[in-house]
């Protein structure tokens, strides 16, 4: 949606090396005006480093950063049109909440009455209007996070950078803050770049997500596309849960791939336009919630199906995960089923002989 708008941030072949180790390795991407952009990846993949380079707290070893049409090389951190919310919030302990929020304005020479007014406004924006006179140690973690947010927004930056802003909050508050962040972003219209290693967070908030691994961007797409059409096994595995079947491409007919998997009686068929060549090794990635369990084989012959035996059931509240053995050679297949009924009336139980089935439109075949 936002790829057509003018980019506010352009990252051009940026690398950051610490000694010989590349924390960020030749990243190129652009972020559109008004986007809610997420950098997602496992610990140590270079997300924070990339964000810090945008803020000017770290200098790229190679490549160029352009923010709002202006080359950022040589522009120090205190003159960049971006502001950051730090992972530890870094709310100054010796200043009142109001002074914290007003600090950015104070150092850029704004007059005192205006500082007060704008800081108060920013505090109201994060629903802390009455907390101005408090000291940071009189606030809860969630409130401190809002102070950090207000403090970064008060200067009306072109881009707001957030480094794992929700990681220090408890689960309930985190969910609530996700919504609030999205609403806030829509209110202020500032581009948000958020770093997270929590896929749910990225999926629920971002308009686009860049999945990073080992300093490189593996895939950049909107949440639904990332989930339904991952490009690599890493992305498929990192976003959500997935069953992976390794096999060889047997045939490709009219956009239907036939993947012969050792251990399965029938090849897996998947409808896909972009196909690996016949004979290549590939992997079918299948989400647990897309598989159906039944006592009888499916009537539709075009559907994929395989017999199996339920070996384990994990109860997760809204869903249960059934672990099904389809072959001794393959790992257990995970199947998610909504717990429509109470557990006591589960349709299937341990040791049941069942059929797993899924349509050709489910899943993707990956060659990496």
């Amino acid at each position, binding site marked *: 949606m936002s790829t057509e708008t003018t980019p506010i941030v352009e990252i051009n072949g940026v690398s950051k090396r610490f000694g010989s180790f590349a924390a960020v390795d030749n990243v190129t991407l652009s972020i559109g005006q008004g986007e809610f952009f997420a950098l997602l990846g496992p610990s140590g993949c270079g997300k924070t480093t990339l964000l810090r380079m945008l803020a000017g707290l770290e200098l790229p070893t190679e490549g160029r950063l352009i923010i709002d049409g202006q080359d950022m090389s040589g522009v120090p*951190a205190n003159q960049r049109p971006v502001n950051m919310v730090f992972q530890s919030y*870094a709310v*100054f302990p010796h200043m009142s909440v109001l002074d914290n929020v007003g*600090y950015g304005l104070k150092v850029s020479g704004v007059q005192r009455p205006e500082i007060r007014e704008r800081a108060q406004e920013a505090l109201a924006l994060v629903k802390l209007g009455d907390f101005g006179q408090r000291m940071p140690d009189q606030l809860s973690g969630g409130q401190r996070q809002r102070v950090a947010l207000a403090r970064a927004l008060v200067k009306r930056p072109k881009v707001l950078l957030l480094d794992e802003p929700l990681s220090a909050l408890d689960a309930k508050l985190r969910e609530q803050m996700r919504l609030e962040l999205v609403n806030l972003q829509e209110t202020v219209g500032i581009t948000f770049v958020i770093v997270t290693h929590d896929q749910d967070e990225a999926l629920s908030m971002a308009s686009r997500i860049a999945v990073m691994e080992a300093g490189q961007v593996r895939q950049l797409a909107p949440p639904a596309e990332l989930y339904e059409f991952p490009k690599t096994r890493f992305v498929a595995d990192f976003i959500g849960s997935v069953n992976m079947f390794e096999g060889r491409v047997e045939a490709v007919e009219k956009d239907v791939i036939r993947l012969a998997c050792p251990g399965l009686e029938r090849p897996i068929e998947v409808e896909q336009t972009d196909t690996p060549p016949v004979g290549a090794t590939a992997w079918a990635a299948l989400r647990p919630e897309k598989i159906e369990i039944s006592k009888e084989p499916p009537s539709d012959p075009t559907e994929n199906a395989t017999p199996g035996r339920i070996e384990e059931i994990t109860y997760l509240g809204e869903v249960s995960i059934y672990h099904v053995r389809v072959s001794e050679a393959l790992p257990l297949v995970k199947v998610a089923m909504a717990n429509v009924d109470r557990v006591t009336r589960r349709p299937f139980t341990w040791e049941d002989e069942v059929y797993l089935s899924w349509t050709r439109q489910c899943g993707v075949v990956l060659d990496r």
Partner: protein
Amino acid sequence: MNLAALFRHREPIGPLEYTRRTWMRLTLLATFVFLYAPIVTLVAFSFNDSRRNIVWRGFSLKYYEKALANDGLIEAFVNSLTIAFVQTIIATILGALTALLLWRFRFPFRGGYEGAMALPIVIPEICMGVAMLAFFSRVGWPTDLPWPLNLSAITIAHVSFSFPFVAVVVRARLEGFNREFSEAAQDLGASEWQVFRDVMVPFMRPGLVAGALLAFTLSLDDFVITFFTSGPDTVTFPVKVYSMVRFSVTPEVNAASTVLIALTVVLTVLALWLQSRAKLKPEEVAG
């Protein structure tokens, strides 16, 4: 109630209740006696109405008056305070900058530099004193300057042995600093100087105050190093007391010493209090 019952109903002594064990109490008592008996005697006899420090003859403030009237003593006292004030300011700034340098930057031989800086803390004072004496006579430091410039040699000597203490205290404080504070300030548009003034100094403040008070008391009661660096006209309080004692220990000396003890104790307590307060305050936000 009879006495025997009192003893019989005593609760057994718990494993960690050291203060209820007799041998522990005796040790404690002995420690206090050895540590404080001389000081208590000194203070008590400063109020004694007698020329000699042997028999108690009744309460009097006359030796305080006498000490006040002793121009040489007063001059030495003023000298000591002047030196202490000036050297404290210099040592605090120097110590704080050293601590910042060691904390912030990485440079070759940093470990060696850090060790060398702490040397004045560990090497015997007498060696420092001799070294200072040798140094000032080698460079031909003028001794005939007017007051207060004539105190410059002592002041310099004091700075050189007290600034490492400041540096150590401030450095310890900086260890607890979360760099995200200074980065946040920078990100919000603060220049290097503004970051230093608005974030670093407030954070270091308890360390600075404690370090300064430490430097002040160290300077005020230093004898050895001062003795080697003072000229004939630049007598400090401890040196003066020493020379008075060489004739006889009069209650006048007691009175003057009591004033010094009171001053040192007050400053030390203040320093400790400031430091404990700084520790209690939650400086780190959300880990």
